[in-house]
């Protein structure tokens, strides 16, 4: 295992290129449409989970309300393209910006909250957004939703098959990964991580934690909005039921399983969870029990997630606990 890790570490750019080429080429080998749809889901949820991972895994703000931002993105796209006939690409950007603004608005009153308290607020915010979408009938169509959302075109080329959408999702995922990678490996990313690790120390080093947290939240929400926008044109019909809390937990479970605080974790999480969804389809709703069991098992045996380094935040909690148990007496003596 460590050998594999060393090899991957050494030839990182080569591996990445190989993975990208594989991702581009393999859907061309005549898969059934339903299969390609699964691939689309995997990529879509990768970006969603990845963007949640930016807030949860990198700055340690445990948000559970990602479905809300996703919802905003989808509705912005649906409303602007059906009512005002604005073309897809500028609206896509607006979907992202709309979600980012919502993220900013939610992040301001929650700046002082941490952990479970922040989770509950974001959970509530997500539900509030969904309920607004359900009840504001004049704008969102209420429980009937919005249908006949037009397909996007690109210089006369129409995205009208799952395969074409696969490449759209892939493109967005790659851009997301690239931008996030660059952010994480910069002063901005370091300040996010310093907040996750120790906010008091971060402040003592001059990190302005409030704006950093807000930007982080908005950035995560932005990508959720982008994916929401693409989702709307992909399925061509949206209603508020899609963006329930279950969806939020679904995204959350992917980053728990894949590994928080790593860029690669959400890919693995997305593959595992979406793969399981298909495999367990025969047992119907019982599959949710399986997810729950899987999450509990993961939290117990590998809290950092499948791809997580031992220095990710969740693994950290466990290591800390063990350390405290061992050296508890000594620590007391020092202080």
């Amino acid at each position, binding site marked *: 295992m460590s050998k594999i890790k060393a090899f991957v570490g050494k030839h990182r750019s080569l591996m990445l290129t190989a993975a990208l080429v594989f991702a581009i080429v393999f859907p061309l080998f005549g898969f059934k449409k339903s299969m390609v749809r699964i691939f689309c889901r995997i990529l879509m949820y990768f970006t969603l989970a990845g963007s949640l991972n930016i807030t949860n895994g990198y700055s340690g703000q445990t948000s559970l309300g990602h479905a809300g931002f996703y919802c905003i993105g989808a509705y912005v796209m649906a409303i602007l393209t059906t009512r005002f006939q604005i073309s897809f690409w500028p609206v896509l950007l607006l979907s992202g910006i709309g979600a980012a603004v919502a993220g900013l608005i939610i992040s301001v009153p929650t700046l002082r909250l941490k952990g479970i308290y922040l989770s509950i607020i974001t959970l509530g915010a997500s539900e509030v957004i969904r309920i607004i979408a359900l009840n504001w009938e004049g704008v969102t169509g209420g429980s009937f939703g919005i249908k006949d959302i037009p397909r996007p075109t690109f210089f006369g080329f129409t995205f009208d098959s799952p395969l074409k959408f696969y490449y759209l999702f892939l493109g967005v995922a790659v851009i997301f990964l690239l931008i996030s990678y*660059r952010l994480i490996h910069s*002063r*901005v990313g370091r300040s996010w*991580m310093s907040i996750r690790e120790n906010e008091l120390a971060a402040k*003592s*080093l001059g990190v302005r934690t409030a704006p950093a947290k807000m930007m982080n939240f908005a950035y995560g929400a932005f990508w959720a909005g982008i994916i929401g926008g693409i989702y709307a044109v992909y399925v061509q019909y949206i209603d508020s039921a899609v963006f329930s809390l279950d969806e939020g937990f679904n995204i959350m479970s992917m980053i728990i399983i894949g590994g928080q605080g790593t860029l690669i974790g959400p890919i693995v999480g997305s593959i595992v969870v979406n793969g399981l969804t298909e495999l367990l389809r025969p047992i119907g709703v019982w599959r949710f029990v399986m997810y729950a069991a899987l999450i509990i098992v993961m939290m117990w045996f590998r809290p950092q997630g499948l791809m997580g380094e031992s220095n990710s935040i969740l*693994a950290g909690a466990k290591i800390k606990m063990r350390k405290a148990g061992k050296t508890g007496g000594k620590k007391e003596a020092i202080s």
Partner: protein
Amino acid sequence: MSGLLRTEGVCCYFGGLKAVDNVDMQVEPGDIFGIIGPNGAGKTTFFNVCSGIYKPTHGKVYFCDQDISNMSQEAISHLGVGRTFQTTQLFQFMSVLENVKIGCHMGTKTNMFDAIFHTKTYRADEQYAEEKSMETLRNAGLEQYANTLAGNLSYGIQRRVEIARSLASSPKILMLDEPAAGMNRLETDALRDFLKELNAKGQTILLIEHDMKFVMNCCNRIMVLNFGEKICEGSPEFVSGNKEVQTAYFGSRTFGKDVEANAEN
């Protein structure tokens, strides 16, 4: 009215508890200033008031003749106050180098745009952070730990990393809260030499310490707190000779004297 860091009648009350009561202090540039006192004397509270974690109940704190009493912790850091904590507050699950790089946060100004498009600012900042961090680590003798996770280091080394991290932000004054706590004699001596060396280069240092030997050897001026009040200030010799300080630390000898006096009568 000068001095780098100055407090005027600073009080910090928690309800009825007077943790810090009417303390005046003046730290001159280039000084090593020590604050000592028995447990619970209010040293750390006083530190927290100076660095903005607590707001003073009464009184003012000036840094470079600027009133910082009601400023946020980050704003005070930006003015050039660097500090460490009594219990180490490292970014435990990041490498030592990354820890120190975050110390360079104030010296750099990459924003999200710069980071995404790898602009000139980004490249200059990354280079600066890398060089500055490595230099700081070298000076602190921590080079070999650069890629170790901070949480895996021994306690003494962790304290040193915390100092290095603070130094990376090029503070005008370095405030150390019990830097030698939990260190063995060898490590303490090395730390003292390190601090003296820093001071020789012009770094102003303000420190809290329990270890008397350390303080007496290290500091130019010492302030003694007891029950939140300043009882004495001066050179190490003056402070160690002061009656009130001895009383605070070792208890009163008057009882013994009274007995002797009674016996004579």
